[in-house]
């Protein structure tokens, strides 16, 4: 494992298995998150982003199984850890912020108690006063009056609830914060506030972060590296510059950018990517994007594309050779 990385996911595959079918949710993905940096995982609903996040903290639903690969966190493969040791990582070294602030807080517990719970679990030696002190500090950190620790979740607005959830996640100053679409459920003005707060706290605490989102604007604002996920695969990854600039992109990434409304262009509709994601119970043999790709070639249906690497920029498409250069001949 590279010393500079806090988390390395290698060749991770996850399936959801029921009596009737096997859903291939994640298929051999590789992610490396550098210390104190933020990795953005983008992709549409059902691409396997949340499944990836849940595999990291090992909280997959009962039907979910990791079928291969490793998840190394600070040199330790999390998939090898026994459950009780894994528990000492959750909330303490790796924390997670869930998507919906309305349902992620226990309605019958005061927010202070909920923050205190995580602190107490991971710091059993702390006295009551110390825990309370830390609860107040944590609340102040996310911009909520410490005196409100005695209030219940229903007395907070959506944005405030999400702040509380972030406070819970950061209460033990984790090394890695997984944020699963933390602003999706909030309205736009609050989104910006919460996002800036996350960014600010990340910089202040030196937390590494895995930011899951389908909003490319968020990625541009706070991520250092990006992975574009599609049907359980990372089809393109690199630094923010690699993805947002340059000419060579995976057709899916192009499609994603094409579907953002452009303020400068006149009277141009955002271009949606036609079609739907392939059925994860029955993935195509070749490239997973072939059915929706406007550049689709014969080879795309038959063979899974190889990884093309140029510097930090990686993509997985038959249009490019292994060095990331566009293959001229096949164009069309």
């Amino acid at each position, binding site marked *: 494992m590279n010393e500079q990385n806090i988390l390395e996911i290698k060749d991770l595959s996850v399936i959801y298995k029921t009596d009737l079918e096997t859903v291939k949710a994640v298929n051999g993905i590789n992610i490396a998150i550098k210390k104190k940096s933020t990795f953005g995982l983008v992709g549409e609903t059902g691409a396997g982003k949340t499944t990836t996040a849940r595999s990291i*903290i090992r*909280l997959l639903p009962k039907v979910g199984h990791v079928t291969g690969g490793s998840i190394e966190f600070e040199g330790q493969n999390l998939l090898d850890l026994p459950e009780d040791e894994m*528990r000492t990582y959750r*909330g303490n070294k790796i924390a997670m912020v*869930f998507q919906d602030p309305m349902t*992620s*807080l*226990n309605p019958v517990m005061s927010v202070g108690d909920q923050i205190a719970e995580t602190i107490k679990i*991971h710091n059993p030696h702390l006295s009551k006063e110390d825990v309370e002190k830390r609860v107040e500090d944590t609340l102040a950190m996310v911009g909520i009056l410490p005196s409100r620790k005695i209030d*219940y979740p229903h007395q907070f607005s959506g944005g405030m609830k999400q702040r509380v959830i972030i406070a819970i996640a950061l209460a033990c100053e984790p090394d890695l914060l997984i944020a699963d679409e933390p602003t999706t459920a909030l309205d736009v003005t609050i989104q910006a506030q919460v996002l800036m707060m996350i960014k600010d706290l990340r910089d202040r605490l030196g937390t590494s972060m895995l930011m899951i989102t389908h909003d490319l604007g968020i990625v541009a604002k706070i991520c250092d590296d990006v992975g574009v996920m599609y049907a359980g695969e990372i089809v393109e990854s690199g630094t923010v510059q690699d993805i947002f600039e340059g000419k060579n992109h995976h057709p899916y990434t192009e499609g994603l950018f094409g579907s953002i409304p452009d303020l400068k262009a006149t009277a141009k509709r955002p271009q949606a990517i036609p079609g739907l994601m392939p059925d994860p119970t029955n993935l195509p043999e070749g490239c997973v994007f072939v059915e929706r790709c406007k550049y689709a070639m014969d080879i795309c249906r038959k063979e899974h594309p190889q990884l093309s690497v140029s510097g930090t920029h990686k993509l997985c498409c038959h249009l490019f050779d292994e060095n990331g250069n566009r293959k001229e001949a096949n164009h069309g």
Partner: protein
Amino acid sequence: MSNTVTTAVPAAQEPMKFKKPSQVKEIWRRFRKNKGSMVGLILLAFIVLVLIFADFIVPYEDGIVQNLALKNQAPSAEHWFGLDSYGRDLFSRVIHGGRTSLGVAVLATISSCIVGSALGAIAGYFGGKVDMIIMRGLDIFMSVPDILFTMAVVVAMGTTFANLIFALTLAYFTNYVRLVRSQILSLSEVEYVEAARAGGSGSARIIISHILPNAMGVIIINTTLNVAKIILYESTLGFLGLGMPPPAPEWGLIISEAREFMRTAPHILLFPALAIVLTACSVNLVGDGLRDAMDPHLKS
């Protein structure tokens, strides 16, 4: 144009202070609004106080000592509820009998609630084989009619206060297993339980501090409603002669004894029946009010 609006400027704003809106206070505030439930509560409080201080109101011996010369005497100033077929003071019998009846009912409810909730929590949370074993065991319990089952237990083990509670617990814990299990099944999927797990909470902590408090409303309501049912059920046992051994008074037993004299001395039947109805009614009213007061969706 001078439409200047003068707004009252709050003088020197004090720093806002937040008081803890205690759950109990909130529930009480909402409970108080329900008139029917308040009547039930007052009635129940009265009944409970009378039962607690029964010895100061009328001596137990009055209900035991027979005076056949005065049998079936109608209510009078001296004997408020009259005398029964053995010439025993009915007022004393009803009040002291209530101690047994209500005592058994409350204790049986609590014990069936604890046993049932624990089993239901285990079955629901762990699922799989554990769930299967508990639920199939439960099916066996439920396949025998309640009354037959309790009778069998009481007959086999003898009619003592403890055995009555044991028998009633066995008959009633099944309700709680199913109730709590279903609550847990739905609650263990909710996001805040998921979030608690992501924060490093273990199974025991999640059940105790996240799932049970959220299921508490339903459990408490079911419990109050069950008290009423068990009072009636216990009276049924007494009526069948499987309650506390005579001459110890008990509502069901008094009614059963009064049966023969229904036409000639209806008061013997009337008073214990009234006691059962009032108690069951008041407990039901309180349970109803609690259900409304504890439902977070009705918060106002």
